[in-house]
């Protein structure tokens, strides 16, 4: 049966024709071309071949959707990007990660902080999926504490020399180039480093319990030389890093809805069919409570993300509002995955059903792009005026 989505509050009526059309197109493409590849790959921890898939995704406009068309993007609004993320993560979080990283963490900073030449060089090729980029921020010793990053870049004439390491980087081993942040005398800067650059190694991290079909790995920088023309001139402060993170965090808030919808739908169908003690288990009050709780949380999350998309389009969203949606919706999806898994009984432990796969994936989402705690602290600081990130011991 074709996936219908969850729409208890008539959100469909709030969407424009082009928003619905893009969502439907993405859904059709993913169901036919991608979904069949995911389940076995997840089980065996085989990576989806993004070199092959990305050009197909690029052709239908899934990459750089909100980037202007003159740079090869789609010129879409935030709600369209959000709906795309929903459909991607409904299939698998690693797909949404790929699109969010490529579009929000690599294309967006090049578009916002790059020179005209850099934009023309990278953006159209990235939008077409011919070139894959990765985003190197997290380090072995510095995760949430972005400002404390240890990777350094020193200027030597017209060339920057980078040393350090980046860990837990999506698409690390696949990427054709990396956007790497490093501390400099002039602030935190963003460097574009092509694959194969001397001193630059890209490796793959295996044995993951989450995002098993997605490439995640390490970038090592050993006296890597980057010419000035490959530095983004507009990105000089940590706040510029956060500008990119906001793009991806918004996408995550919708992606989480997709994962939750998949879990809810699976549980609803399963409990209506599975009989125990002489009746479908959906006939029991405890089961209905679980199903209803999922529906309520999904509906609330949809309303949050819908409103947030409209605020972003109007240029009125505060980054704290994005934090609220990321935190709430990921927690919601985590609850739905766990609940659906348990409603499926032992079958919930099988990769033949999606909840346990989403359950693994959503753990990564709970941590990356600002952990749940970090978003709590962002909101806490906003409402109290007191920062609680750092303390002196």
């Amino acid at each position: 049966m074709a996936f219908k989505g969850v729409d208890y509050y008539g959100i469909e009526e709030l969407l424009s024709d082009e928003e619905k059309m893009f969502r439907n197109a993405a859904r059709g493409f993913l169901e036919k071309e991608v979904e069949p590849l995911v389940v076995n790959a997840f089980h065996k921890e085989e990576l989806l071949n993004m070199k092959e898939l990305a050009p197909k995704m690029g052709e239908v406009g899934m990459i750089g959707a909100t980037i202007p068309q003159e740079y090869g993007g789609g010129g879409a609004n935030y709600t369209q990007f959000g709906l795309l993320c929903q459909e991607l993560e409904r299939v698998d979080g690693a797909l949404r990660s790929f699109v969010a990283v490529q579009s929000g963490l690599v294309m967006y900073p090049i578009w916002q902080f790059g020179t005209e030449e850099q934009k023309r060089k990278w953006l159209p090729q990235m939008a077409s999926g011919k070139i894959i980029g990765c985003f190197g921020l997290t380090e072995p010793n510095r995760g949430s504490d972005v400002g404390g990053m240890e990777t350094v870049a020193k200027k030597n004439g017209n060339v920057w020399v980078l040393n350090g390491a980046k860990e837990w980087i999506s698409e690390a081993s696949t990427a054709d180039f990396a956007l790497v942040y490093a501390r400099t005398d002039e602030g935190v800067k963003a460097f574009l480093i092509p694959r194969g650059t001397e001193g630059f190694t890209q490796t793959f991290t295996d044995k993951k319990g989450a995002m098993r079909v997605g490439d995640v790995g390490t970038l090592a920088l050993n006296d890597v030389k980057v010419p000035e023309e490959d530095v983004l001139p507009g990105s000089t402060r940590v706040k510029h890093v956060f500008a990119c993170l906001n793009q991806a965090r918004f996408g995550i808030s919708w992606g989480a809805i997709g994962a939750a919808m998949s879990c809810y739908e699976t549980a609803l169908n399963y409990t209506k069919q599975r009989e125990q003690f002489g009746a479908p288990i959906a006939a029991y009050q405890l089961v209905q409570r679980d199903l209803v709780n999922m529906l309520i949380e999904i509906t609330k999350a949809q309303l949050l993300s819908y409103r947030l998309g409209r605020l972003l389009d109007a240029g009125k969203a505060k980054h704290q509002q994005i934090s609220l949606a990321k935190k709430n919706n990921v927690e919601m999806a985590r609850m739905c995955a766990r609940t659906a898994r348990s409603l499926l009984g032992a079958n919930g432990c099988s990769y033949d059903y999606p909840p346990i796969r989403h359950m693994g994936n959503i753990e990564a989402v709970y941590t990356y792009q600002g952990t749940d705690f970090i978003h709590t602290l962002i909101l806490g600081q906003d409402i109290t005026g007191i920062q609680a990130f750092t303390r002196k011991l």
Partner: protein
Amino acid sequence: MPDVKMVVCCKQVPDPEAPPTAFKIDPTVNKVTLPRDIKPVIGQYDEFALEAALRIKDKVGGKITVLSLGNNIARDVIKKTLAVGGDELILLEDESFEEGDSWSTAYALAMAIKKIGEYDLIFCGRQSSDWDAGQVGLGIAEILSIPALTLARKVEIIDGKAKVEQVISDGYQVTEIGFPSVITVTSELGNLRYAALKGIMAAAKKQPVVWKPADIGLEPSQVGIAGRRVKLAKLFQPAKDAKCEIVEGESPAEAGANLAVKLREAKII
């Protein structure tokens, strides 16, 4: 032969992928009722027809006018035809168009095509994905007095004619047809391409033209249910009766023999 003028007829139907149990029949009024969460789609054969036209446009150039008849046609569904590369969208949209038969539908479409005026090829799906009658394409050809070819799996334009591969029971045959003509398209042609974001954004800026019966020179009494020539006598869900009988025997061989006897008695073998 550049710039082939094409009309593609596309019908909005309930999603055929919806589970059969979702479709209910009310025998008192002879109508199918659908739950609201079943979304409409473009009939799959009509999508193949559109793809046939798009391939011609890609290869030799042309203009594609999409024509759809119905009521409450969902814009986000039908505008997909523009998003994939259709140039113009005309909707015959009115309450009076509802519940027509193949005749009244073909008649209204033919009158609309006459109004469009210039056309070389008219593409239809081999049949609709809801009623499966498979008559509208041929009906249009008859009413417009132009030739038709059915079950096309490939259409090419060569020297101002259409070269068509038609599916037949044991393979395919190659035929040629001049302009103007009707071609009905079958699944073997291949799926409609995906709508890309850029196409969707461009389609969003176009508005479909809406024609009422009067715009194509017809009275409401000539279209839809009023214009039907086939009267629907009875619509019902066939009652399925399944019984299970275990055929026994002393040995598996004997059970098999007993089963064969039973099947022979029931005239199944």
